[in-house]
């Protein structure tokens, strides 16, 4: 367990990203950061703040509004031996670059039979709440995980976002690095210097023996809050932060589910053809585990803008707690109290 000392800071998720980026810009002259607004006064929620001043305008620069071509530029630079970090304000904008990511970046290593590699990090931020609406809120995690040749990471804690970003920058493959807007202000203990958190490892955030809750990105926070609610009914939930979607780590889920026999997977996405389907399939197909399972995720509609409907759209600690309670007790006699999710409550926009 980390403790705050002269080597460990209590910093935000956004600052952890900034710290990882600064370390890598210092360590490796081939690293550079580019994307719309990375050198503006807001510095993408502070994650790229003043990098252009600290490291020069050729190592942190703004781009025209053309996602596909800028991704291609990053891929071309990566082929030439650079380590570009491309920043998207929202995951939704990344859709304009799918040709480069799916047709090009993921295939180049294979097509060249290993002679070329594409060490690009594509950072994308999932939006949520305060009216982000249909086109500023998508996760699309499983879309990328579907493609061989890509790695897909979605860290939740400040510690992991720094460690996995350093790993992503040093990885020689295209990495889709998925952040969440609601996590940027969250604080946690983060070592000051260089360290790596490896891909393909999920993280057990909290132990329990009655039910396993698997969260992805922001729904990890929902799971932690649901665990608190379940404690009121003396139900001990184990919370796993999936962290790495491709490669997918099954080991912690398998050992947890063998213990609890009950699994709730909370997608930070639509459930349909999603990551949860993949986890459940692997449990059945490969690991022969007997268990009960429920999936919770976005309602299968575009995300509505009005807050009156948004609540129905997203998973929540209450929904998770209620489903978990019913699985554990086989009773339907509990309506969990509504708890305030700090990140959502405090967010007052505009973006």
């Amino acid at each position, binding site marked *: 367990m980390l403790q705050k000392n002269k080597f460990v800071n209590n910093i935000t998720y956004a600052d952890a990203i900034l710290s990882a980026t600064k370390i890598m810009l210092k360590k490796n002259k081939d690293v550079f950061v580019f994307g719309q607004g990375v050198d503006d006064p807001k510095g993408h929620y502070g994650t790229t703040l003043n990098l252009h001043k600290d490291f020069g305008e050729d190592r942190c620069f703004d781009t025209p509004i053309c996602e596909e071509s800028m991704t291609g530029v990053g891929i*071309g630079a990566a082929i030439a031996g650079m380590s570009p970090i491309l920043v998207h304000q929202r995951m939704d904008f990344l859709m304009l670059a799918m040709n480069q990511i799916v047709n090009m970046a993921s295939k180049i*290593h294979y097509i*060249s039979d290993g002679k070329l590699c594409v060490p690009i990090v594509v950072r994308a931020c999932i939006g949520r709440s305060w009216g982000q609406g249909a086109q500023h809120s998508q996760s699309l995690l499983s879309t990328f995980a579907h493609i061989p040749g890509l790695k897909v990471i979605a860290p939740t804690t400040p510690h992991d976002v720094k460690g996995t970003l350093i790993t992503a920058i040093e990885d020689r493959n295209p990495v889709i690095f998925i952040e969440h807007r609601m996590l940027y202000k969250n604080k946690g203990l983060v070592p000051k210097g260089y360290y790596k958190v490896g891909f393909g490892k999920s993280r057990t955030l909290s132990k329990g023996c009655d039910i396993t809750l698997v969260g992805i990105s922001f729904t990890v926070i929902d799971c932690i809050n649901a665990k608190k609610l379940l404690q009121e009914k003396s139900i001990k939930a184990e919370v796993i932060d999936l962290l790495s979607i491709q490669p997918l780590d099954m080991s912690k889920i398998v050992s947890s589910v063998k213990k609890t026999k009950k699994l709730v997977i909370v997608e930070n996405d639509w459930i349909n053809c999603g990551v949860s389907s993949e986890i459940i399939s692997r449990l059945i197909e490969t690991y022969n585990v007997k268990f009960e399972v429920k999936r919770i995720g976005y309602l299968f509609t575009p995300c509505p803008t009005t807050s009156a409907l948004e609540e129905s759209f997203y998973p929540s600690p209450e929904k998770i707690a209620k489903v978990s309670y019913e699985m554990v007790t086989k009773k339907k006699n509990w309506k969990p109290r509504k708890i305030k999710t700090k990140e959502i409550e405090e967010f007052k926009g505009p973006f």
Partner: protein
Amino acid sequence: MKIKKFDYEKAYYLFKKIRCTEEKIIEIYESNIIKSPVHLSLGQESIAVGVALASEKKKDIVFSNYRSHAHFIAHGGNFKKMWAELFGKETGLSSGKAGSMHLGDLGINFIFTSAIVGSAISQAVGYSLALKMKKLNSKVICYHGEGAMDQGTFWESLNFSALKKLPILFVCENNGLAIYSDQRKRMKTLDICKKVKSFGVHTIKIKDNSTKNIFQNTQKALQRIKKNGQPVFLEISTYREVDHVGINYDFALGYRKKEKQKMMKSLNELKFLKQNTKNFKQIEKKINKEISDALNYSLKSNFPHKKCIGSNVTKE
């Protein structure tokens, strides 16, 4: 950059080699030994030869596309391995995982090509950005058709290359066709150079298919890039002799007329180069031997082991 004189002998060798290669592919294609699509360069050879002879071999970086045989051969790619790749053999450029649409040879900085029209253009620009960042005194040559200029990404990439002052030469091979769609069906205004110029990029238009003229203009363009480190755009009119994909003539489809004069352009140019080459007999002998050696090499080579399918999906 040293000013080079146009070398007829070299030009004839490359031109003839491209032509013979494509003709050999046509000859054996029906036997089903090349089990994948081919986009032949017949009719467009002079561009590849002129540009390649003007470029700095092993120093310049070459981005091509799915119609790459001429570029690959002209820039001096490994010929045996190219054939083995067409045959899907383990001795191929990519152990058979790539084929005709994705040829590449890093020995001559020839980047593995893409089958998605226009998709490598931004990568070529990105490569030239890296050259600038690394302060490498080198340039990128990016071949594309006028069809790729229908794509938004061409203009986005062009803008970025001008904005960042990048050392890249765009070589537009304008054959006026996107599969069977005439340029006039796809573009309101046909003056490509005028459009490119408006992005702040220097342009050169070449209307004939004189290899020497292409060579000289490319040399001028590359010198300009070397001097001021900014992009140049070359538009060269050309003619596609056979179908977009595959080995057949496509006149029977009725979408274009067979124009004898255009059909003869490339052969006439080849004849002209031959007339200026003393040792043409020796050269032809050499080419025949290279082709038969490459075919034997490819035929004798093994197919990749089944285990190979899972290698190099990701870099370990």
